[in-house]
């Protein structure tokens, strides 16, 4: 695969050129150290140095609210069609943690029975990654799960080399865009500079919890009845923020809406959260995860235990969003450390 070079002062031309082809979304500063992926038309709007956005780019793959079906009852016998509204889209500046998150969701929604809404949206999205040369903040744990380096999942991938970006081409689509923009090929000196950045990261990015990630499955296997979950249950307020901001949380709810004619309507999907009290309740009155402790435990097992068995990878990308957003100050790194300490 190829490497190209883009001088920093040419970034604006790159973004405006891309925006002529399709909608471009990138991280934008929202104040108070908050960032969000939003539509941009020039590089000037883009926050190149950003900590993980409030919502991960999953919102483009699996929107917060999405129509699954249009139905029509006019004829007496109902009819329905599955219409998807999705546009060509490029997401610029996706960090490696979020690339990993998208890869996780790809696995989930490709499993049969397939979710064609997700899969078709995915086909329309062009992904441009952006390397973190330094930590965003102390909440991240990307090195623990090996996501501080790129592990694929992009069409193009940018690494900052000071006055220029070196761009790794991940797909043919990416190559065609780079060539179409007339980007220069990287020289051996650029490759050496990239190696230097990556070498530097070996020192600055270190396992953030001091626990061997290979031991996590065993720690979680032992920790089902740990006091840690009881402690989290005592703090948690069941707001669902942690799951909304998680790049790999995909639980959803569905509901119908009826138009004013009372004859037509739609079936919609919205994000849901396993942290909500009624999430695992059934109509008969039983609630299978009634306690907040059980729901918090469930969240952690869905990141560090279940997906390891099923997909051979953690569904925590190390982005740190759940810790940043938690109103009750539940800290992912501290939770893992406490669980590991208990299992010793």
């Amino acid at each position, binding site marked *: 695969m190829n490497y190209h070079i883009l001088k920093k002062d040419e970034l604006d031309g790159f973004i405006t050129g891309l925006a002529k082809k399709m909608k471009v979304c990138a991280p934008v500063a929202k104040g108070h150290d908050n960032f969000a992926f939003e539509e941009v038309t020039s590089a000037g709007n883009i926050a190149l140095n950003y900590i993980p956005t409030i919502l991960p780019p999953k919102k483009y793959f699996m929107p917060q609210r999405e129509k699954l079906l249009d139905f029509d009852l006019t004829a007496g016998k109902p009819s329905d069609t599955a219409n998807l509204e999705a546009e060509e889209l490029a997401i610029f500046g996706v960090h490696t943690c979020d690339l990993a998150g998208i890869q996780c969701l790809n696995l989930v929604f490709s499993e049969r029975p397939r979710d064609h809404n997700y899969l078709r949206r995915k086909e329309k999205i062009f992904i441009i990654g952006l390397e973190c040369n330094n930590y965003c903040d102390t909440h991240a744990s990307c090195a623990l799960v090996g996501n501080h380096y790129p592990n694929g999942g992009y069409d193009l991938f940018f690494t900052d080399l000071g006055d220029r970006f070196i761009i790794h081409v991940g797909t043919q689509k990416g190559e065609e865009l780079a060539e179409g923009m007339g980007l220069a090929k990287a020289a051996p000196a650029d490759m050496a500079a990239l190696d230097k950045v990556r070498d530097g990261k070996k020192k600055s990015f270190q396992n953030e919890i001091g626990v061997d990630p290979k031991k996590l499955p065993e720690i979680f296997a032992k920790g089902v009845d740990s006091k840690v979950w009881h402690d989290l249950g005592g703090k948690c307020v069941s707001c669902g923020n942690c799951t909304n901001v998680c790049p790999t949380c995909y639980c959803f709810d569905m509901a119908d809406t009826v138009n004013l004619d009372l004859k037509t309507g739609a079936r919609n999907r919205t994000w849901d959260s396993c942290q909500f009290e009624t999430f695992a309740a059934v109509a008969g009155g039983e609630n299978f995860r009634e306690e907040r402790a059980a729901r918090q435990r469930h969240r952690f097992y869905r990141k560090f235990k279940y997906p390891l068995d*099923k997909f051979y990878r953690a569904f925590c990308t190390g982005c740190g969003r759940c810790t940043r957003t938690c109103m009750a100050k539940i800290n992912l790194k501290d939770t893992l450390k406490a669980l590991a300490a208990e299992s010793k």
Partner: protein
Amino acid sequence: MTEEIKNSNWRLRKGQIIAAKQMTASEKWFDIKLDDGDLDHEPGQFVQVELYGIGEAPISVCSSPTKRGSFELTVRAAGRLTRHMHSLDVGDWVGIRGPFGKPFPVKLMTGSDLLFVAGGLGIAPLRSLINYVIDNRREFGKVDILLGCKTPTDMLFGSEIAAWQKRLDVNFSCTVDRTAPDWKGNVGLITSLIPGVTINPEKTFGVVVGPPIMYKFVIAELLKKNLPERQIILSLERHMKCGMGKCGHCQIDHPKNYYCCKDGPTFTYEEVKEAKKL
């Protein structure tokens, strides 16, 4: 840009109610015919029933696949959708997705004795299997059916149960928690019927369907009879919202991360005994 997803798994089959009957104060029975042919389900599977504009709920199919042309549901008015469903009648249309879920292991059961234990509405999913077995009666050994309900008036499928009682190839007993003046049968919990059944643990499958509270006690009785854990079959209840192992609502707190809709709803006791709740 709008595009149609013709192969969307969210699309609904269209079912018309061809018969309906209020069975008890809280349970209504429906016979539904799909406009695109048979449901093609297996005993123990469920469907998602869509009432357009109101929503969807998972309901066990209570008829056997040996009955062709239509399928049956018995619906307890327990939640918003099921309460609305009670207002439906012959001629009304519903949307159907499915069938979903892992069926009862009918093939493994072939040649074995069968002990069915149903509590309350558990008879609905179990009936799909019981009628399948009755329709293929010579393929199975001895058949015992134990049924428990709260009071005699809560009993579902009354006329059909009367027919089971008369059959020579099925042993049927039934008990109620609370009696009524004209009740002449057993009174007591369903567990009280189990000691009276003779089983050969080597060649018997126990199939247990009922409310979560029932499982613990019935399973203990079956284990006392030396029935192996993997020959005890359960059908678990969860809110199976999508039916496709994705939405997360039906996930069981178990080391194996079961989705009740896809990995279940039927499980062997061996598979789910580590679950936090059955």
